[in-house]
């Protein structure tokens, strides 16, 4: 097991290295000079040169890549071109919004999906199942930013139960923080929950068709007991995969929702950074997100091994 973990860690590092090169190269060809952006219409050429020098934009590509990479290994992501603050700090701040939001949305998604999927799977062919499945179809088909807009109108502007957006900050207390994340989390969770429900239901139904469920029923287990004791854990493998994918998606994919709710999260940071040509921020955030995805996949792999004894011995 230890060997397996170590092996995975080495390949994880290799993937990260490749990813960092890809990201750096991609951003090398981005047109637009950050210095020109910062100084605006009336800037003079010597002013621009001075600023470029200060930003360290004058070295060769290889030098810049090297210093970026080695800095990152020390936890130093460089200084933002536009904000002029350490990128690591900025990311740290934003992470305090994005990570709780992703977890909140994921939690909601699981909280909705698990009971719904169990319910639908155990009532195959009933109107109730049809209803749940219909809801999930709608949940997948609704563009979530549109749904978010409607929710803001109803719950923030009209009913005023939740703030229309922004983030109160954790220093205002857990409740205030969660309150400002509720609507975004719901908007994010809706399609995710729908997908998860469908995946889990079909995984459950597939498992219910397996021979060992028949064996369990022959032992005298009721349909429900067989579902809970035998099908559920077996169905968790595809479900875990989806949960892993969703978490990484939520961490990075909240850009649009963060814009709708003007949340100071990672997605909006990178969106702004791209339009401001703050490349060092873009590079670092994308790198971090890639790292997160790879880490999540790694964790999911370990979770598989935890769920499935067949994977424990192998490799």
């Amino acid at each position, binding site marked *: 097991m230890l060997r397996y973990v170590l092996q995975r860690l080495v390949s994880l590092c290799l*993937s990260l290295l*490749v*990813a960092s090169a*890809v990201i750096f190269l*991609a*951003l090398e*060809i*981005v*047109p637009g000079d950050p210095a020109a952006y910062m100084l605006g219409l009336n800037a003079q050429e010597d002013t621009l040169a001075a600023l470029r020098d200060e930003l360290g934009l004058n070295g060769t590509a290889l030098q810049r890549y090297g210093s970026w990479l080695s800095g990152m290994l020390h936890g130093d992501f460089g200084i933002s071109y536009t904000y002029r603050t350490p990128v690591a700090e900025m990311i740290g701040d934003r992470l305090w919004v994005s990570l709780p939001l992703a977890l909140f949305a994921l939690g909601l998604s699981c909280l909705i999906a698990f009971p719904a999927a169990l319910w639908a799977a155990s009532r195959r062919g009933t109107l109730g199942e049809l209803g749940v499945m219909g809801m999930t*179809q*709608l949940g*997948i*088909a*609704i*563009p979530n*930013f*549109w749904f978010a*807009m*409607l929710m803001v*109108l109803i719950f923030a*502007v009209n009913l005023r139960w939740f703030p229309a957006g922004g983030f109160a900050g954790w220093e205002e207390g857990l409740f205030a923080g969660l309150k400002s994340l509720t609507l975004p989390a719901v908007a994010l969770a809706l399609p995710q929950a729908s997908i998860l429900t469908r995946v889990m239901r079909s995984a459950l139904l597939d498992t219910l068709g397996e021979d060992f469920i028949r064996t369990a029923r022959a032992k005298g287990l009721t349909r429900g007991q067989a579902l809970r004791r035998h099908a559920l854990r077996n169905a968790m493998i595809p479900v875990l995969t989806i949960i892993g994918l969703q978490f*990484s*998606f939520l*961490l*990075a*994919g909240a*850009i*649009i929702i963060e*814009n709708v709710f003007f949340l100071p999260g990672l*997605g909006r940071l*990178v*969106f702004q950074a*791209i*339009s401001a040509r703050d490349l060092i921020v*873009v590079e670092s955030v*994308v790198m971090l*997100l*890639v790292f997160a*995805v*790879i880490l999540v*996949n790694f964790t999911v792999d370990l979770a598989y091994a935890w769920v499935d004894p067949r994977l424990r011995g192998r490799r």
Partner: protein
Amino acid sequence: MRRNLILGTGLSAMFAGAALLSFFWVPFDIGALDIANKIKPPSGAHWLGTDHFGRDILSMIMVGGRTSIAVALVAVGIGMGLGVPLGLAAAVQRGGWLDEGIMRANDLIFAFPSLLIAIMITAVFGASAVNAIIAIGIFNIPVFARLTRGAALGLWTRDFVLAARVAGKGAVRISCEHILPNLVNLLIVQGTIQFSLGILAEAGLSYVGLGAQPPVPSWGRMLADSQTMISFAPHMALSPGLAILLTVLGLNLMGDGLRDLLDPRLQRGQR
């Protein structure tokens, strides 16, 4: 369960048909702005009302559907066109260097947050429908590559492939004659789903201004344009929102229906 298929096909065909029709006829010319008549609620002349430039929303939905559908369709085409051959090639020798290479590259693409990369691509090459297609298409490649590889690996263990090898056929010929035709069902179903995801992705990109550019309308851009007016002109946001919702819903239902219809397990004589 043909109900899904009929309903889904009906919905999708309705929107696709309207989009096709718009090549020949639309109720009103959307190129001519009529600022004096802006933001009018639905009426006899304008069934879905007019937008902030006084254009007929029904006509906009019809023409906008062209963009949304074309972007999604071509993106799926890119995904299939590149992903399927890659998946087939990877499956020829499980665990071989080609397989490893293709699958690692896939993992790498999967590790990048898709929306972010789409935004970066449009930032690099400029916002346009073509770049939106590329951005969405890139992420379709690993989806199809993975799907194809997985299913093809299963098929390669089947005896009829062995029979073809006994008949002296090479990997390319077997992939084309025996593997690919048996993947068609699967690809159609996945294609439908990716198509619907493509429409959602296009809407999202256009919403943040990175999709189709004016004067070409698209559903996502209509939503973005109508956003600030939703409170006093809900008809402007409802029509494109519902167009997206119903098309995606239709495609998903169609995908489900096709899956049931084409599922080999349900086909007689094929276990």
